Each structure stands twice: as C-alpha cells, then as structure tokens.
C-alpha cells in the first residue's frame, strides 16, 4: 500500500533510465519557463515602448526595479540575488535543495526589471527557475542527493538551451558552471534535458538562430589579434566584476528600504539610457547590429558605450534590481570586440582584418569565458547562437586566454566569488567538501572509560587493565563536568612505582590544559588544532561534559570512504 510517492523504493534507487525520464520532464518545464519569460519581456517592452517618448520615462527602469524588489521582498519573501550563485550554493551545501517559490519568483521579478529597461539578463532567472523545478521534482519523489543535484543541472541546462536554442551550451553551462563536476551520472540526464528544452523552444518559438551573421574569412593575423582581444576582454570582465561589487557595497550604505534603493538605481539607469538608449534592457538588439556591422561608427563612441553599459548593469543589479549577468556580458563583449577591431583598424589600416562583426562575436565569447571562468561555455555558446563553426580557432584562443588572465587576477568567477569568500563553495571530491560532509558526531569514539579526580592510582590501574585505550577523561564525580585527561604515556613512571599506587590521586596526574574540540566545531578547524598541537587525538567536550574522543586515524578512514562515495570511485 503506497501512502506517499516518497516511499516508493523504485525512486530511491540509482536508476539512470528513471533519471532520463525525469530529465525530459525537467527540460520541458525549464523550456516553458524560458519561453514564458521571453514572452513576458516582449509584451512588456511592446507595452512600454509607447511611453518612452515622455520625459518621465527615465523613471520607468526605477519603477520596474522597485516593483521587482517589492515583489521579491514582500510577496514571495525571497532574499534578492543573481540566482545562479544561490543554485550553486544549494548544490554545494545541501544536495541541490531549492525552494518551490524560486521556480517562478525570479521570472516575475526579472521580467519587471528588464522589461522596464533595466540592464540585466533573463538567463540567470530562468536558470534558477529551471533548477528549482528540477529540485522540487526530485523532492516530490524523494530522490537522493546525487539524483537531485543531477535534476538541478537538468533544469539549468534546459533553461539555457531553450533561451539560446543551444543544447550543447546548456549542457556545458550546467556541468561546467553549476555542478562543477563531469560525471556520467550527471551528463546523460543533463544532455537529455538540454534536448528537451531546445525542442520545446523550437516547437513554440521556431528554430531560429539567435544572432545570424555573414560568412567570416578568418586569416592568421586575425587569430594573432585575438590575443590582444582576449586581454581587452579580461580587463572588461574584471572591471565589470569589480564595479558591480563596488556599487553593490555602496548601495548597502544607503539606509533606505531596499525597494527605494532599487528605484534609485533604476532611475539612474533610466537617466543614462535617455542619452544612450543602447545600454537599456537586455541589449540583444545592439548585439545583432554589432554582428551585422550596422553599429554607428566611431571608436570612442563604442568604447564609451562599453564603459557605460558596465556602469548601468552594475547599477541595475547592484542596487536591487533582479536579473542575470549573462546578457549584459554578451552585450559588453560585443562592444569590446567592436572597440578592439576599430582600434587595430586605426593602428594598422593597411592590414586586411576580418569584419568587425566577427570580433564582436569573439568579444562575446571572451567576456562570458572571463566573467564565468568557463571557457567551454563561451566557446559552445557563440558557435551555437551564431550557427558558425568557422570562428572556432579564434574562439578557442580568446576564451582560453581570457579565462586564464581573469583567473590570474580574480581566482574565483563572478558567480563563485562570494561563495569562495564565505568558504561555501564545496565542489564534490574536494577536501573542504569531504570534511563538511563528515560530522564530529559520527567520528566520535565513545568507548573511553571516565575516571574521577579523587581515585587512587591503584584503582586507576585496575581500570587501565580493563581498557584498550591510552586516554582517560577525568570527570567531576558530583556534576559530571570534564576536568582534564590522563594519557598513559605521561604517567608511565608512576605506574611501575608501587609506592605511588596509594599515595597519588588521578586528580594530581591529569592534564588540565589539554586542547578540546566541541561537537559544533568545523572538522577543518579541529584538524588544524590537531596539526598545530601535533595531536593524534583530542577530547570532544560540549557544555562542559566529555562526549568522546576524535582521532586522526578514524577521521582519515572515514575521509577515504566519503571521498570514494563523492567521486564514485572505489
């Protein structure tokens, strides 16, 4: 008799075929979520388009950001954030557990922010939505942690695949950025989800390439120039990361409600956008004109727009608007590519360079690779969204160099920076993750025999005979409080001196200055204490009472087993 779906033993098994079935469902749901946001944005932009001629339209992005912030804060009660870091955090720490409300909250809030003209992308909200759908489907069927994480990856893959009509990019993004782990268990369902997401997108939106382009005739000198472009992309990536964080920190010093803060940020964006409409919204229109070679001429103009786009994106996202960094990265990347092309064309006018649309594409890959530190995502995304394989060589060069340079300057990517700073990025199979998944409680050795400080040595020797341990905790007879430890090595001389047997009390022999751990300490800290003091074991004391011993031997044994589980290797 089945009472809850969660009790079905079938769903608890490591059944790959079953995971594929779930992957199809999650991929379809993510695809639908992506399309809903896409349609919502189109409707909002169309509706607000008529009002942009009025002077007060400069406040539209502010109103949108404020409404978005109020919706997140008051209606769905969800803390603001970019979305993807929250997904990575959930995968890192809690086996991909995400709230159900996350499956729709960011879609609505980002629609308000971006539709009103805020400079942000719809991708991260859809990724969060897809991931939350995957997580909650896994929760409903009581799947285990690894299966749940795989479905979270399926949601992310389906979302990206549906938005860009790019199944490989969705798959690579999910594995490279969200999960950080390439394993067969993950890749197969994620690939299926990416296909499902793409197919849903094609059925409902048509099989369109996002950014169509003309043929590019790439020469060796263009590939060489890509080294310079990669440096420009890396600089822009670092600049975007730092300006965004700086403006976000600056906003926290403004002591007004969050929705007012979002309104202020959005209004600043609106004011800037009044003079430079290129920087408003997700910016795909600007990318198209850049790729097709239709962007207004002038090196300074494009460079200026690039810098302004960085600022307005930082104002939108850093001051409380909702959305992602993906689309702004593509726009900024395209502008960086244009700027670079115009710069080298100015410096070396006699050299025959490939057209600027190609450099716009390469810039997009460079920015995505640099800011996400995910070169494969950058490479595959640009190939798929432009439908052109001929740029593969310069793409690899730009992505690889931009990623390397960014990693050199900023060791963690934009999505991971906060998590790394807080020590919350725990990728499977890493030391930090293994130690986090073990608890002091499960390593505790509780077969120690406690003694009391008023015991004579003779009594203590009888206890030693019955014990196989070298450590004896000393506890107060009245209240059970831990007083110290007796280690056999320290008292060996007394043991063989019969004159001492009735003259010495255990209270005189114990070490009261011994370092202790608590049940609630982090295992990494306990290990550090052991290394610093060169201990092989330590007493664990909680609320003044001895709980047991923790030893390096037990720890390493459990560590090895946990590592095997996490990496799937025996």
């Amino acid at each position, binding site marked *: 008799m089945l*009472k*809850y779906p*969660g009790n079905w033993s079938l769903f608890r098994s490591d059944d790959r075929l079953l995971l594929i079935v779930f992957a199809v469902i999650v991929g379809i749901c993510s695809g639908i979520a992506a399309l809903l946001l896409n349609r919502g944005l189109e409707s909002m932009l169309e509706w607000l388009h008529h009002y942009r001629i009025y002077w007060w339209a400069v406040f539209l992005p502010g109103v949108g950001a404020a409404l978005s912030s109020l919706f997140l804060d008051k209606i769905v*009660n*969800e*803390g*603001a*954030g970019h979305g993807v870091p*929250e997904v990575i*955090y*959930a995968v890192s*720490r*809690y086996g991909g*557990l*995400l*709230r159900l*409300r996350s499956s729709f909250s960011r879609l609505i809030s980002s629609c308000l922010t971006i539709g009103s003209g805020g400079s942000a992308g719809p991708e991260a909200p859809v990724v969060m939505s897809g991931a939350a759908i995957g997580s909650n489907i896994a*929760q409903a069927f*009581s799947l285990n942690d690894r299966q749940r994480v795989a479905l979270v990856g399926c949601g992310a893959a389906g979302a990206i695949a549906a938005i860009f009509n790019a199944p490989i990019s969705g798959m690579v993004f999910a594995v490279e950025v969200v999960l950080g782990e390439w394993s067969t268990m993950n890749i197969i369902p994620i690939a299926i989800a990416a296909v499902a997401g793409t197919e849903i997108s094609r059925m409902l939106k048509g099989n369109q390439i996002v950014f169509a382009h003309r043929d590019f005739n790439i020469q060796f000198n263009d590939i060489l120039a890509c080294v310079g472009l990669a440096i420009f992309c890396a600089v822009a990536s670092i600049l975007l990361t730092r300006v965004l964080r700086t403006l976000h920190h600056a906003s926290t010093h403004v002591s007004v409600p969050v929705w007012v803060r979002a309104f202020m940020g959005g209004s600043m964006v609106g004011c800037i956008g009044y003079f430079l409409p290129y920087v408003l919204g997700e910016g795909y229109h600007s990318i198209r004109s850049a790729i097709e070679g239709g962007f207004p001429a002038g090196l300074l103009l494009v460079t200026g727009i690039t810098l302004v786009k960085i600022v307005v994106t930082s104002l939108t996202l850093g001051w409380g608007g909702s959305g992602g960094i993906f689309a702004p990265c593509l726009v900024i990347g395209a502008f960086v590519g244009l700027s670079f092309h115009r710069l080298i064309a100015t410096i070396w006018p006699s050299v025959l360079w490939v057209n600027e649309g190609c450099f716009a594409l390469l810039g997009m890959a460079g920015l995505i690779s640099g800011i996400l530190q995910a070169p494969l995502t950058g490479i595959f995304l640009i190939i798929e969204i432009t439908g052109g394989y001929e740029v593969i060589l310069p793409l690899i060069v730009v992505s690889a160099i931009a990623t390397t340079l960014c990693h050199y300057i900023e060791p963690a990517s934009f999505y991971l920076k906060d998590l790394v700073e*807080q020590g*919350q990025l725990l990728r499977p199979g890493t030391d930090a993750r293994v130690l986090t998944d073990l*608890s002091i*409680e499960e390593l505790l050795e509780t077969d120690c025999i406690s003694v009391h400080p008023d015991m004579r040595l003779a009594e203590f020797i009888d206890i030693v005979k019955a014990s196989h341990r070298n450590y004896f905790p000393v506890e107060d007879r009245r209240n059970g409080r831990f007083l110290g430890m007796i280690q056999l090595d320290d008292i060996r001389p007394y043991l063989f001196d019969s004159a001492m047997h009735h003259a010495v009390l255990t209270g005189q022999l114990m070490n009261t200055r011994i370092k202790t751990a608590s*049940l609630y300490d982090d295992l990494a800290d306990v290990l550090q204490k052991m290394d610093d003091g060169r201990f092989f074991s330590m007493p664990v004391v*909680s*609320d003044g*009472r001895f*709980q047991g011993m923790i030893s390096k031997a037990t720890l390493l044994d459990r560590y090895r087993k946990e590592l095997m589980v996490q990496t799937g290797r025996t």
Partner: protein
Amino acid sequence: MAQKLFHIFRNTPLGRETLLQSIYFCQKMGVLPTVYIPESTKFLMYFENDVVQVDLDPSYLTDPKTAIAHASDLLEAVKIRPEFFTPKNYTASTLPDIPTSFEFMCCPRSISDLSSKIGLGYIGPRVRRIIQSARFPVLITSPVYKPWQSVAVFFGGSTNAVNALRLGIRIANRTGLGLNLYTQVGKQPADAYRRIVRKEDLSVPLNNVLGDWTFFEKGRFEDNLFSVPHDALVVLGAYGHGIIRDIMFGSMMEKIQSTISNNLLIAGPKYTVAG
C-alpha cells in the same frame, strides 16, 4: 551526548512565556536550550529532502538591544548557562541557514503570522512544514507558561502514533512522571490497539509508566478531549494516516491543537526515535 532544544526567541512578553516553557521542558528532560535571536524575519531550514523557509512576523525583531539580556536573565535564573546560536551559513545575505540537527525544537503555534493570532487555535503553515519535515519532535507551547504534571499520549494506531508513544515513554522515563494514554476508538475494537503495542514490543516499557489508558468509544473526538488534564504535556504523532486522508478528513493534530491549550510535543512523519 548533550541533547539540545532549539528555541527562537521573541523579545516580547509573549515570547518570554514561550521561553519559560522551553526552559521548563529542558529542565525536566535534562536537555540544553540553544536560543536564536533572529537578525532578520526570514531563515531557511534545510531538512533531508525539503527546505523550509520560515517567515517570522516583525515582533521577533523587537528591541534587539535588550533581547540577549532578557533571554539570559530567564536562563540564568534557573542556572542554565545561556547559549546563543549564531548562523554560519547564509543562502542569501538576509537569509541565514538554521541547522536541523537539534533533538527538539520549540515553536509557538504560529511563527509566521501576527502574534495576535496565537492562542486562537491556529497552527501556521510554516510550523506544519517543519513538523512534516523534521527528524526531531516539535514542542508547541501553551499560550502562557504552564508547568506540566503528567504526560498524555494520543494513540491512534498509526506508525506515527507508535513513534509518539515511544517518545511519550521516553519522556515519562526521563521526567519520572506518569503517562496516560488516550485512544479514540475507530472501526477497530480496543484490543486491536493493545495488539499494536504488543507487536511493537512496547508492552513492557509502557506498563512501567502507564497510569490510565482511556478509550473514547462514544462522542466526538473534540468533545472527548475535555478528559485530558489541562496540566499534561500532550504527545502526539502528526500526519500519520496518509496524505489523502489528512487532506480529506483533516489531521488529528489540527483537531487537538485547536481544541486544547496544553503544551504539545509533536512527532512528525520523519521523526526518528532518539535515545
């Protein structure tokens, strides 16, 4: 092993009553209270297969400057060293993660709605979610501080009721108080319930602490609840009859909590009996 009760402190007169009740429970049971003074109105609890967001009402943030002192005074008055919980992990900057590894948790009847609703027989949706997901029993306190003199267990024969009975026996053993058992007889005769107890090997431990076992054979369950002493700690299982039946006919827990104002200790479907 030191066992702990997690208490979310509301720095108001009502919150004082709840903390006094938690302290009393801890003293009787020999467990230690861990007090959390919220820094924001939201927090997350990650259970094994569920994540519950708890949205506190703004009264939980009342006068944060005096909150620690107020809670410390109440704890020190009974010679308990105050231990306050500080979140280490955050899902978002305003969203701390609260661990779920405690042995007990204290909830007022509602932690997500206005204080004015508390005491009107209303369990908030967040409290329900916590009960459904937690591996620990949840202590739902009476509206005002009320020491208890006995343990009353509601036993309806379900798997969860068996868990609740185990919990009740454990509490009776720990506190030295008598245990009374209450059963609303359904389609099965009274003997069927005794057979369940025997089948679960609970006869001997139950007989050691059992005072009376009352079978309500007539009348509405809500009316029969008058027989339960007002100063008993009521132990019951929740959501034990299957999700459909809970939705169709209402949970027994809902009926009990909306009828009596005793302190309740509720074992949800995920509760695993600790030592």
